């Protein structure tokens, strides 16, 4: 196996470990967050973002190359896209229903919590459905452009 792949397994494990230590794999903290009764996870997210903001600003100033790629670090954020607001609301509904997000659902499995297995299968189905929808839209656009040209 390539070293890159081993590094990313290790990084995934480190991130999963930190999510667990932060309480993000403990269902009750999600109830605390959404019912505004225990703000453990809000502290985690808030302080993580502040730490990230400071660190990113520092990295933009130092402008180092990435160690593995030897290329300048990317600082461009994700773009606006159609459906961003609707998608984020749907995501949130799922987040509140299942008390997990994509990363934490996977880390929970390692702790022996099996209920998120249903969530993980659901995420795969929802992801697949999005891809299917995109393919269908691409096919119908192609058919339309062929019929106007023909």
């Amino acid at each position, binding site marked *: 196996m390539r070293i*890159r792949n*081993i*590094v*990313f*397994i290790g990084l*995934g*494990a480190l*991130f*999963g*470990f*930190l999510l667990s*230590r932060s*309480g993000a794999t*403990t*269902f009750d903290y999600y109830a605390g967050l*959404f*019912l505004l009764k225990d703000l453990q996870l809000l*502290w985690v*997210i808030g*302080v*993580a*973002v*502040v*730490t990230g*903001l400071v*660190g990113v600003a520092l990295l933009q100033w130092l402008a180092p190359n*990435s160690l593995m790629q030897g290329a300048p*670090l990317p600082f461009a*954020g*994700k773009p606006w896209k159609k459906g*961003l*607001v609707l*998608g*984020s*609301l*749907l*995501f*949130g*509904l*799922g*987040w509140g229903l*299942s*008390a*997990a*997000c*994509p990363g934490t*659902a*996977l*880390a929970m499995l*390692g702790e*022996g*919590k*099996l209920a998120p297995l249903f969530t993980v299968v*659901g995420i*795969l*189905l*929802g*992801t697949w459905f999005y*891809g299917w929808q995109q*393919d269908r839209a691409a096919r119908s656009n192609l058919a339309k452009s062929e019929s106007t040209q023909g």
Partner: protein
Amino acid sequence: MSPVTVWAGWIGGVAIGAYLLLQLVLTGRHLGTSTSFGDVCGLVARRGFFTRGKFEGGPSWRLFFFVGLPLGGLLAFLTSPDAGAWTPHFEMGALYGAVLPRALWAKALVLGLGGVLIGYGARLAGGCTSGHTIMGLSLRNLPSLAASIGFFAGGLLAANLLFALAGLG
């Protein structure tokens, strides 16, 4: 409350913030998790969406990151005081455990529906809580701020409805 060791929130926050910087400097990749579910779809798709664009060219780094996450959860449990008590189970804690249906098939339906919303919503929004909220906000990215507000609005709505319906709001 939890069989795993949980740090004070701000310590966890500093650690996760430091993690995203480490990943960025080491690999030149932004933190993000939801796209890796598309890479898993790409393992079985022969053509179409999951074989093109960022999913092109077979197993990406994201797939290995995906595999690492459960290992991290296992490691966290095995380094907690109750390490010897590791056992697979379907319990969901005092609060969600009280409001979600008891029967496993019904629990599976609710969590499966939640998962579908998460998976579809993340692709439509272009990221999840790690990619948009933690990474995107660190980059001072406005679309990520909009997405994060949407995530929280949806979460507040769903959880409050769920607990109100169960008479526990």
